């Protein structure tokens, strides 16, 4: 250990300033983790209140207007403050330089500024809580132009957050282009990096469109520009085009990093090379490109033309195939492996299963005729949550557990963590599975009041939130109380670079930039020769 490395990154400097002004990518990653954690909890509380409201038809605990505010806050905070910046900014920051063998990201200061921008956007959101919007996270016009609620503040917050994610994306892309260690060729790049690369591309190229859209929305409210207001000759469907041009790729901004995480965890706990490395790597990139072509499938009944509906439906099914391929690749990675069911592995397996359900229910929605019936019902709500929670959040939790030793230098109580997992897994399905049935039966979403025949479904769903809530608390409690003793540098015998150093890593990651000589995930004996 060299002198510069005598303390790890957590101990190198204490106090507020040593964190707030740090340019260390690991500390910035950890700060993102805390920040998104806080907003995850806030947004989750909003969702628990939404569900509690649905215990009975009509008013249970809050009024209709408060309910509208609650689901808006839940959606907007989850999307813009947790899930979009979430995994990419926290684990991306922490892991990318470690994985590619670099001392830091290429623009360390810019990285810090992005984090400050995130905080600024978050602060605007918090101020907006005093007079929150009631438009839903989609800000559809003309409602968002006409409502008396304060829409400007929250949209401006989203705009600022968008800047933060653009800058982070640029930083990651250039880092992966310019700072890979010698020998770290693109086909040796860990799949998490591939996923982060694709995510960053989407962030950089899609976010500006939602930026201008929200700026114009603010302009609508201040000046009455009229682009999106039918009363002034504008077209509300155009707003939806612009909005989904960003927000559909944003779905992949949310899910791709989680896919990357799963691709990291499966080989380690199966002691097998990932099955179909190239297929997964290239399909990440393919998804990043094709996902720009399918936004219209959110608008099949919004008044889009029939022709464009058909075009979007075709392309939608084209994106479905690479996703299916990935699922089977992950599964087959376990074939003839030596599988350890650690907590991280459990979350990964749950990801595969739940994401499969999420993906399959997408097939219903992509079919034009079926979407006419299912659009804007609870079926869509359930589908989206199976992808976003069953996918992204489970992947995020898997990462929390998997890189826990690396990040904090300690181990956690696996047994209790597994109990938390079981609660979250069961709770999640209890919340959202009934919503598929409810939606098919015609229960519209964003409904404060509902017909009595849906009450049983709503109640089951609400009880599920209590189970998942207990699971969250238990998980947090387990992670907050690490076991005594220091974690090993490489507790799982992993082969990727981030495990080749002490846990937690020193401030400068590597004493010496390593030279990479073999493919990533080079597990297993070479019983079957390659090609």
């Amino acid at each position, binding site marked *: 250990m060299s002198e510069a490395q005598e303390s790890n990154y957590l101990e190198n400097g204490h106090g507020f300033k040593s964190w707030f002004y740090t340019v260390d990518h690991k500390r910035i990653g950890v700060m993102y983790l805390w920040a998104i954690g806080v907003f995850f909890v806030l947004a989750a509380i909003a969702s628990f209140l939404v569900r509690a409201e649905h215990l009975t038809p009509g008013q249970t605990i809050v009024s209709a207007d408060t309910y509208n505010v609650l689901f808006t806050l839940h959606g907007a905070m989850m999307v813009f403050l947790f899930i979009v910046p979430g995994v990419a900014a926290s684990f991306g920051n922490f892991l990318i330089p470690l994985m590619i063998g670099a001392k830091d990201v290429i623009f360390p*200061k810019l990285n810090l500024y992005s984090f400050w921008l995130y905080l600024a956007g978050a602060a605007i959101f918090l101020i907006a809580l005093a007079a929150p919007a009631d438009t839903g996270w989609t800000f559809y016009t003309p409602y968002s132009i006409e409502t008396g609620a304060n829409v400007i503040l929250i949209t401006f917050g989203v705009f600022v957050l968008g800047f933060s994610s*653009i800058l982070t*994306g*640029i930083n990651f892309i250039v880092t992966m282009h310019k*700072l890979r260690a010698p020998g770290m060729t693109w086909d040796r790049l860990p799949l998490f990096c591939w996923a982060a690369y694709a995510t960053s591309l989407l962030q*950089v190229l899609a976010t*500006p469109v939602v930026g*201008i859209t929200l700026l*114009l929305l603010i302009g609508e409210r201040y000046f009455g520009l009229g*682009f999106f207001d039918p009363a002034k000759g504008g077209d509300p469907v155009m707003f939806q085009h612009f909005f989904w041009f960003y927000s559909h790729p944003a779905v992949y901004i949310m899910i791709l990093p989680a896919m990357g995480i799963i691709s990291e965890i499966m080989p380690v706990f199966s002691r097998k090379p990932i099955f179909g490395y190239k297929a997964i790597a290239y399909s990440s990139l393919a998804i990043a490109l094709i996902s720009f072509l399918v936004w219209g499938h959110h608008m099949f009944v919004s008044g889009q033309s029939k022709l464009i509906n058909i075009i979007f439906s075709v392309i939608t099914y084209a994106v479905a195939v690479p996703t299916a391929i990935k699922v089977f690749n992950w599964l087959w990675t376990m074939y003839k492996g030596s599988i350890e069911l650690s907590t991280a592995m459990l979350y990964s397996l749950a990801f595969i299963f739940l994401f499969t359900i999420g993906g399959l229910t997408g097939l219903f929605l992509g079919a034009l005729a079926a979407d006419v019936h299912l659009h804007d019902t609870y079926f869509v709500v359930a589908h989206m949550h199976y992808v976003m929670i069953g996918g992204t959040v489970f992947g995020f939790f898997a990462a929390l557990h998997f890189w826990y030793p690396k990040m904090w230098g300690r181990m956690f109580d696996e047994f209790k963590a597994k109990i938390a997992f079981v609660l979250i897994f069961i709770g999640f399905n209890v919340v959202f599975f009934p919503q598929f049935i409810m939606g098919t039966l015609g229960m519209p979403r964003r409904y404060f009041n509902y017909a009595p025949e849906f009450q049983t479904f709503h109640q089951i769903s609400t009880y599920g939130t209590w189970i998942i809530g207990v699971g969250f608390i238990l998980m947090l409690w387990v992670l907050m109380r690490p076991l005594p003793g220091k974690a090993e540098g490489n507790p799982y015998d992993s082969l990727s670079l981030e495990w080749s150093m002490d846990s937690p890593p020193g401030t400068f990651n590597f004493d010496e930039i390593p030279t990479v000589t073999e493919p990533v995930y080079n597990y297993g004996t070479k019983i079957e020769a390659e090609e």
Partner: protein
Amino acid sequence: MGLYSITTKILKSIAYPSELVPSIEEDDGHHHFDPVTEHEGAKLGMWLFLATELLLFGGLFAAYAIYRAKYPEMFMLGSSSLDVVLGSVNTVILIFSSLTVAVAVKAIQENRIQLVKVMLWVTIICAAIFAVNKYFEYTYKFGKGIYPGTDIFYSIYFAATGIHMLHVFIGMAVLGVLLRKVYQNKYSKDNFTAIEIGGLYWHLVDLIWIYLFPLLYLVG
């Protein structure tokens, strides 16, 4: 004394907002990468940023395309009310400022610091003239009772030129900071990345205007 120093501090921070940010220590230079990587990385990053800027304006171009096709008469009428002479003058000014920035970028690589200073000054002055022209154009429109929201053409006109104007101001600020650092002898032929990427940003401002000018002023 106290009041005086606070006032100067506030004024200074308005002039140079970057000074509000405390200097960030870069851990004994350990985070520096080799100069070639940094230079190429910065350029690549800037091009990516320009891509986002292009797509930001992309929303406005899309709105233009749609509403022009939907309301051709409105666009005809609106376009003919704009001052082509003022628009052309602004175009010439902006293209000229693009040239001066390009010359500045070339000059710094040859260590001709004096030339860099002159060129950056000229660029900033051009930008200021552009802004003044726009000011007259706007006030003339306001005087005739035309505001954003008057009709969709004027909404696009004000939104597009307004956001472009914002970029002109940002560009002026960027060039101003660069110029100040040139005076502090921060740049040389071995260290000119900042001027080069600042220049790229200014060219983008020009690029956007190259499209806005004919679309708004000429095609009527």
